[in-house]
């Protein structure tokens, strides 16, 4: 008795799991019309995979009536009915899928905002955080440094010493 109860409850769980795996419990009474991307009952507008597994809208009475009419001659359908049929099956048309969203504007705008914040941080640090540059950065100090490097024949192969003509006492032409 107990085992039978256990088995029957397990079977319920299994059924529920199956329904969840394929998403049957989430699609309402939408018609399943195909395999879809991976066997799950999902809807997505994709240009490279245009026919999803389920219809976009649930089967309301007026759509069901329209589907009955669809079984007849399509030339007798009005333009509004045809568009209603399309929108019952699909959410977006291709031109709507490919329509520009204008999202690039906010991306460019935000990028500019963050870059200007960075530039302001550098400016404010220059003004309020860093001390004056040391005396060795003055023009005379830098010239003296260069003179000393030449005298010491620094980097005679490829560097500064190789560009100086020591016999004539001037830079090589």
């Amino acid at each position: 008795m107990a085992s039978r109860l256990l088995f029957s409850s397990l079977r319920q769980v299994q059924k529920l799991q199956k329904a969840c795996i394929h998403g049957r419990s989430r699609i309402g009474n939408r018609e399943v019309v195909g395999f879809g991307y991976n066997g799950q009952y999902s809807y997505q507008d994709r240009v490279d995979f245009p026919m999803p597994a389920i219809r976009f809208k649930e089967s309301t009475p007026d759509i069901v009536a329209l589907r009955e009419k669809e079984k007849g001659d399509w030339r007798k359908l009005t333009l509004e009915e045809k568009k209603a049929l399309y929108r019952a099956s699909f959410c977006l048309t291709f031109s709507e899928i490919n329509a520009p969203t204008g999202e690039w504007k906010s991306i460019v705008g935000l990028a500019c905002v963050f870059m200007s914040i960075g530039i302001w941080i550098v400016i404010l640090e220059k003004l309020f955080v860093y001390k004056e540059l040391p005396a060795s950065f003055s023009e005379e100090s830098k010239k003296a440094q260069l003179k000393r490097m030449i005298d010491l024949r620094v980097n005679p192969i490829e560097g500064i010493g190789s560009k100086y003509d020591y016999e004539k006492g001037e830079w090589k032409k």
Partner: protein
Amino acid sequence: MLRTAVCRFHSVVRSVAIQNVARTTSVLPSRLMSQHSTETDDEFDSRYEAYFNRQDIDGWEIRKAMNDLAGMDLVPEPKIVNAALRACRRVSDFALAVRFLETIKSKCGNRVQEIYPYILQEIRPTLDELGINTPEELGYDKPELALKNVYDM
């Protein structure tokens, strides 16, 4: 079928090779690799036409073939499009026919000005016979409705 044939061939080759290995050092080349498709374009077209022309085809199979065609590097020939539209008529799915025409237009890529009018001109009799409107006639060549972002709802 192929597998058994390959296995049999392999065992034959192996026995021959083992016999010959004493005399020669060369071994018969046997490469186990897949073959490329040798289907010609005409065969491809007639295969898909026949697929769509099957009388008992259902919506699942139509969608499967259309999704496959949408994933291939080609624009379907007008005769395939005709057969597909007639298949949509048989399963009474108008939206599917219009969606397929949109797929064709999308498949034309950046040569839509050349290819799409040609296909429309070729399938025009079928469109008129079945009463299918092109996406342009339904006003779907330009965005009609905007979808609200799900994160803004």
